[in-house]
């Protein structure tokens, strides 16, 4: 159901013909070795690109700091992800339930998808105060709401005609129609929305830190290290950000697989 939907261009382009995991592994190691060699032989200055070995060393020495900062950034992302998911699904339910609500909500959400939502971070800071994590969590919530709403609304609108007729023939009430067919049928779409939103939550959480607030997350650490010309350390935090993003992506994928297993469509 999620395959080859032009609207969902992006994440799930699986490789054609899976002849083993070797090409990407070789490619990755090759790239790292090349990177190391170029940096050493050509003497690339650290501000441009530090060597992988230097970054790895920093990861080792900064490990406990990396863990605690990643927990802050990841925590914000998780809170925002859950809130935005619940909000997005609820909004999509309302929009399918009432045509008017749908017509009012849809243009706002579509506009939000084109607008740089992270720019709202300073606004939320003035509204809620700069000492709390709430502004960042709110930014993540808004960022997550958009794809979850779009995917859920699409799923809730798509009811197979044969199922709709069946429910009519069974003299089901509108509520029963929603409970027996519309909602369960939309679950794969809703889960696709969650999978797309999970890594976006991490990105929003990190970027929101660039706009000020408490200096305790990965984003703040990258800025601070770069400002102190500790480039290898900054790259170590970048690596941690990447790991956090992948973790959320894999978690989203896992939840999607678990919830929709045994489905054909």
């Amino acid at each position, binding site marked *: 159901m999620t395959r080859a939907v032009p609207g969902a261009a992006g994440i799930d382009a699986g490789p054609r013909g899976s002849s083993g995991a070797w090409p990407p592994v070789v490619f990755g190691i090759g790239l790292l070795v090349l990177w190391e060699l170029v940096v050493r032989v050509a003497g690339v200055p650290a501000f441009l690109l530090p060597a992988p070995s230097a970054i790895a060393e920093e990861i080792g020495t900064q490990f406990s700091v990396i863990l605690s900062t990643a927990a802050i950034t990841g925590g914000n992302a998780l809170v925002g992800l859950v809130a935005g998911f619940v909000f997005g699904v609820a909004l999509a339910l309302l929009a399918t339930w009432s045509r008017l609500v749908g017509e009012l909500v849809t243009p706002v959400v579509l506009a939000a998808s084109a607008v740089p939502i992270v720019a709202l971070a300073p606004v939320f800071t003035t509204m809620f105060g700069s000492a709390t994590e709430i502004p960042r969590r709110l930014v993540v919530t808004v960022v997550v709401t958009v794809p979850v709403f779009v995917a859920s609304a699409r799923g809730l609108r798509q009811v197979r005609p044969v199922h709709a007729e069946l429910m009519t023939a069974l003299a089901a009430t509108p509520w029963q129609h929603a409970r027996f067919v519309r909602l*369960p049928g939309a679950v794969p779409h809703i889960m696709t929305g969650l999978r797309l939103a999970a890594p976006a939550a991490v990105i929003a959480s990190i970027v929101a830190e660039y706009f000020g607030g408490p200096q305790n997350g990965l984003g703040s650490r990258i800025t601070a290290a770069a400002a102190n010309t500790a480039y290898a350390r900054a790259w170590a935090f970048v690596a941690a950000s990447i790991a956090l993003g992948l973790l959320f992506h894999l978690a989203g994928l896992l939840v999607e697989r678990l919830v929709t297993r045994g489905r*054909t469509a």
Partner: protein
Amino acid sequence: MTAVELADLQKRFGDGDTAVHALDGIDLEVGAGEFVSLIGPSGCGKSTLLRVVADLEQPTSGTVLVGGKTPHQARLDQDYGIAFQQAGLLEWRSVVENVELPLHVHGIDKAERRARAVELLELVGLGEFAGARPSELSGGMQQRVAIARALAPRPRLLLMDEPFGALDEMTRERMQAELLRIARETEAAVLFVTHSIPEAVVLSDRVVVMSPRPGRITEVVTGERPGADRHVDDVRESSAFFTAITAVREALRKGHP
């Protein structure tokens, strides 16, 4: 009590110059326990006729009675069961839960509906697949689940819209035998839409032949529905069977020069 009663039924889609006259002057009675097939070329309105009986379409004029009630009341009372060309199973429910669906919608308690569904799965020969997912079943098996689902509220009337249309010929013949047995055991009347002449003849007490634009009944041919004492394969090889097929084919040609 007749299962279905249609008198001077008219159905038009749209109005003005673009109106399509789908059904014109349809008079038809289906008796209790009777098996009646509707056959005709595409666009003759046979599916529309079935859908009017099921209260999925509203007639433009004329009388429609289902078990003596209006179609709307019959639908609310679940006096009929319906099966479509697509099985239309809900893939997130197990096979037995799919059969339970009509009872679930109408608030029958869990133990009772489960017992009924298991009994129906035995009837359609899928007892051991109760816990399976619909996606694990072949097309023919899925259609049998759909029939079991249609039978769940113990309807006196079964409406079937080309239920075997998507199946291969061998599966189809086996399903016809199954349906004959089920109709006999439940004593339900059946209104059956099909494209296939042999299928209509072998299943039905009467075959209603229709012509297109506007949809009218051209002729009613007596079918070769076998009783409990006769196997359906014997019917398929009898000369009466071929005579009836010829009669239906000629009626079709008459209505569609």
